């Protein structure tokens, strides 16, 4: 959380993660080169670079796509989510090296523009097996570029969290394009059951994790509600841990009811930064702290502590026989609500 924009907001944790990313990428490239030159010593350096960085980008993309659902299924993965953006930008650079060298080797040495050559050198667009697979990789690279270029908080703040999130959900389109790029390209020529099986296993893992997380979320959203004079029954006080929250669905909104210092308070569950789940965070220094990037809000009014200006909606609570009831009508963002004491 910062007041002004910096190119990269590093702290000791982020520096540590970034070192791990850089060293892992370097190690992968070195091992790939050693294996290639051991089994195929006449391989050219251009081909080595194309294959090493292409496969690296695919491995990284799988890790990136796994982090989101893993964090929703198990909060022990949340610290990795905190650094996912740097991993994404690093993956884009790996994909860019792959795409750049491929463009140079296959399309830059002719007498037509490389982009024209990319789209026109193979016009078999009606065939599945002979489809110009490089076009698919190029389109995926454009999406990854748009995502990397807008990954900074400056764009997040100016595009709005909703638009920014929709833009970055294009990573799923890029993922499908990349799968098609590999299956219609390399795998048509390198018919190794090992590499094909590896990517199929990766796809099953990623789609399985996303579906598991989606159905877990759906279960949370489908909790039945009981009404009492317009107030909705949530749970008993004992069901909420101290300094933690219970997430409850009201119409289309999720609400996080926090228990802290002998008090209860309810705020909207969606963080203003990147839409993180506030109810999965905890109270730190008296503030609700988003588990994704550490944005903070005061539980009694949903406002970020000064000088920050983010605000979320608040809700009225009522306690009757140790059972918590909530007024389903959200108050204006940042509205002060008297906490309920228990």
């Amino acid at each position, binding site marked *: 959380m910062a007041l002004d924009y910096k190119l990269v907001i590093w702290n000791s944790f982020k520096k540590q993660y970034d070192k791990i990313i850089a060293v892992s990428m370097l190690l992968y490239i070195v091992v790939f080169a050693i294996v290639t030159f051991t089994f*195929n*010593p*006449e*391989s050219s350096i251009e*081909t080595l670079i*194309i294959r090493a960085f292409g496969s690296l980008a695919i491995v990284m993309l799988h890790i990136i796509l796994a982090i989101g659902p893993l964090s929703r299924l198990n909060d022990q993965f949340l610290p990795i989510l905190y650094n996912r953006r740097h991993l994404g930008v690093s993956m884009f650079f790996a994909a860019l090296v792959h795409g750049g060298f491929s463009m140079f*080797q*296959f399309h830059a040495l002719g007498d037509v523009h490389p982009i024209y050559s990319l789209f026109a*050198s*193979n016009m*078999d667009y009606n065939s*599945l*097996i*002979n489809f110009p697979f*490089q076009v698919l990789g190029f389109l995926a690279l454009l999406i990854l570029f748009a995502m990397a270029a807008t990954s900074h908080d400056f764009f997040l703040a100016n595009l709005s969290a*909703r638009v920014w*999130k*929709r833009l970055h*959900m294009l990573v*799923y389109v890029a*993922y*499908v394009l990349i*799968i*098609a790029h590999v*299956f*219609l*390209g390399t*795998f*048509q*020529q*390198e*018919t190794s*059951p090992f590499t*094909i099986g590896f990517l*199929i296993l990766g*796809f099953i893992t990623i*789609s399985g994790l*996303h*579906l598991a997380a*989606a*159905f877990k*979320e*759906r279960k949370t*959203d489908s909790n039945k509600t009981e009404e009492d004079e317009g107030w909705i029954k949530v749970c008993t006080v004992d069901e909420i841990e101290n300094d933690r929250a219970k997430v409850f*669905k009201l119409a*289309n*909104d*999720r609400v996080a009811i926090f228990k802290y210092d002998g008090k209860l308070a309810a705020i909207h569950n*969606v963080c203003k930064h990147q*839409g993180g*789940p506030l109810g999965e965070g905890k109270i730190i220094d008296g503030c609700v702290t988003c588990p994704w990037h550490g944005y903070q809000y005061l539980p009694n009014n949903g406002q970020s502590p000064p000088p920050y200006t983010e605000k979320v909606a608040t809700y009225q609570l009522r306690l009757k026989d140790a059972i918590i009831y909530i007024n389903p009508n959200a108050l204006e963002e940042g509205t002060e609500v008297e906490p309920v004491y228990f």
Partner: protein
Amino acid sequence: MDASQRKVHRIIWMSVAIVVPLFILFSIKDLHFNTAEKKSSPVETASQELVLKTAENEFMKTILYEDHVEIILKSPLKNASSIVYTADTTGKPLKIIGQITASGIYNFDIQSAPEGIALYDGIKQTEITKILF
């Protein structure tokens, strides 16, 4: 994420989980995984089996045996992708039997004796060379 974004996520992944496996199935159903590609000494092979035909050009020498064809690639090809096809009497590619990379000796299993062998660039979709028996 808000409710609509969660719903969009769920719909996207349910669609992907259905469409992508179908796509993968159709894209690999005609691939030949069981073609054994192995390198061995030509002397060793020749001493054990009957040679049916041989042919040679500037790129390669091919030796046809009853159940496999041996290709001796004389020097590395410039093409990034070199797919080996059986060919008809005109040199037209018929069926993929494997691929070659560095110079050396390659052996590919075959079902029946082909009229020729064609090397094809899988990326540029162009013929590299062909050889007729």
